[in-house]
């Protein structure tokens, strides 16, 4: 512990029952980015995700039960802070995010605290239709206003944060529905973090289909609108956070001596 170069960026991959895809994804990333550490947060999987990930060369954190992407990412952030990493990039474990784009998204941190790899920014051919598309553009529009910069894909999970973003996140990174993308972003912005977006290409999902039925998409629209309202109404958190050391307890305050 604590023997990391403090400049390192940690790749965090939340994974839930991803045994099929995760091995290849990790090997892909290690081939393209051999210098970066990979942390897989196994979110209570019932399959061999953890073993396959460990054999592929990643550090694996095993959550005792399913917490959702938000909870898994919080765990990854906590790990990153305790081990002295200077930032985190979140990468999907199903191979949707291309390893070649990691460096590009990380480079976005030179100008901002949070860097989002965006699908609709004129690169790649990702398409969404109907209510889902409306939801995404509505979210993008509102959050762009809050951010003061144009963001086109705020629900993208392909994002990097620096140390300042990490500390903000650990203090407030909601583990609820869409909390890992929309809510966390709004709160980070309200607490004074800056955001930029990097156009990236994404592969179609290797396993599983995104919900494209109009009914599901409408529910998505309604829920994301609600999440957005809650996020905008939330109190902002103060920015001057201290870095917790290894012995710190869960609330990320120092242990009283």
């Amino acid at each position, binding site marked *: *512990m604590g023997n990391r170069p403090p400049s390192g960026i940690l790749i965090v991959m939340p994974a839930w029952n991803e045994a099929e895809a995760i091995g290849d994804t990790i090997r892909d990333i290690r081939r393209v980015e051999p210098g970066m550490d990979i942390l897989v*947060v196994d979110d209570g999987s*019932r399959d061999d995700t*953890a*073993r396959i990930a*460990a*054999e592929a060369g990643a*550090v*694996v*954190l*095993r*959550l*005792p*039960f399913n*917490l959702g992407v938000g*909870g898994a990412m*919080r*765990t990854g952030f*906590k*790990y990153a802070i*305790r081990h002295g990493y200077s930032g985190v990039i979140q990468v999907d474990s199903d191979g949707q995010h291309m390893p070649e784009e990691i460096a590009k998204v990380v480079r976005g941190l030179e100008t901002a605290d949070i860097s989002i790899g965006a699908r609709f920014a004129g690169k790649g051919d990702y398409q969404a239709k109907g209510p889902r598309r409306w939801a995404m553009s509505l979210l993008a529009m509102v959050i762009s206003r809050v951010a003061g910069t144009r963001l086109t894909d705020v629900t993208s999970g392909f994002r990097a944060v620096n140390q300042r973003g990490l500390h903000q996140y650990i203090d407030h990174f909601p*583990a609820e529905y869409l909390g890992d993308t929309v809510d966390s972003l709004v709160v980070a912005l309200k607490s004074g973090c800056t955001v930029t977006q990097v156009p990236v290409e994404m592969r179609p999902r290797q396993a599983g289909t995104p919900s494209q039925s109009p009914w599901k998409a409408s529910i998505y629209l309604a829920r994301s609108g609600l999440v957005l309202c809650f996020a905008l109404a939330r109190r902002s958190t103060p920015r001057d956070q201290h870095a917790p050391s290894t012995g710190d307890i*869960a*609330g990320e305050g120092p242990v009283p001596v």
Partner: protein
Amino acid sequence: MSVALSLFSSILIVVAVLVMLRNGKLREKYAILWLVIGSLSIVLALFPSMLEFAADAVGVIIPANLLFALAILLLLGVSLHVSRELTILEDETRILAEEVSILRSAVERLSGSNATNVPRDRTDHPMNFDQQRKDQ
């Protein structure tokens, strides 16, 4: 409802709360609320005229309606409080899960950091029923 029956049921509530308190099945901070409710209902059972007086004072025509309205308000408050406590508990559970997973990875690394301990660890896993059956 006769005075005896309502008196009996309110005494039953108070006794139940006290027994649960004694057995450590109820935290004091929740017990106080129920003790207050229980003793109030004992008083009401002993002096039903108090309810009529109160209903008259606040302008409720049928005294029983005042009782129902108060009961609904109280239960609403209690369930809201329980939801709040549940949220706090879930948050605490989540934080514990995060801590456990980080500690577990640290323990695995410290107790022999090679890839071979991963499959062996899998057989120790509580979900691995096959292995446990073999062990027996």
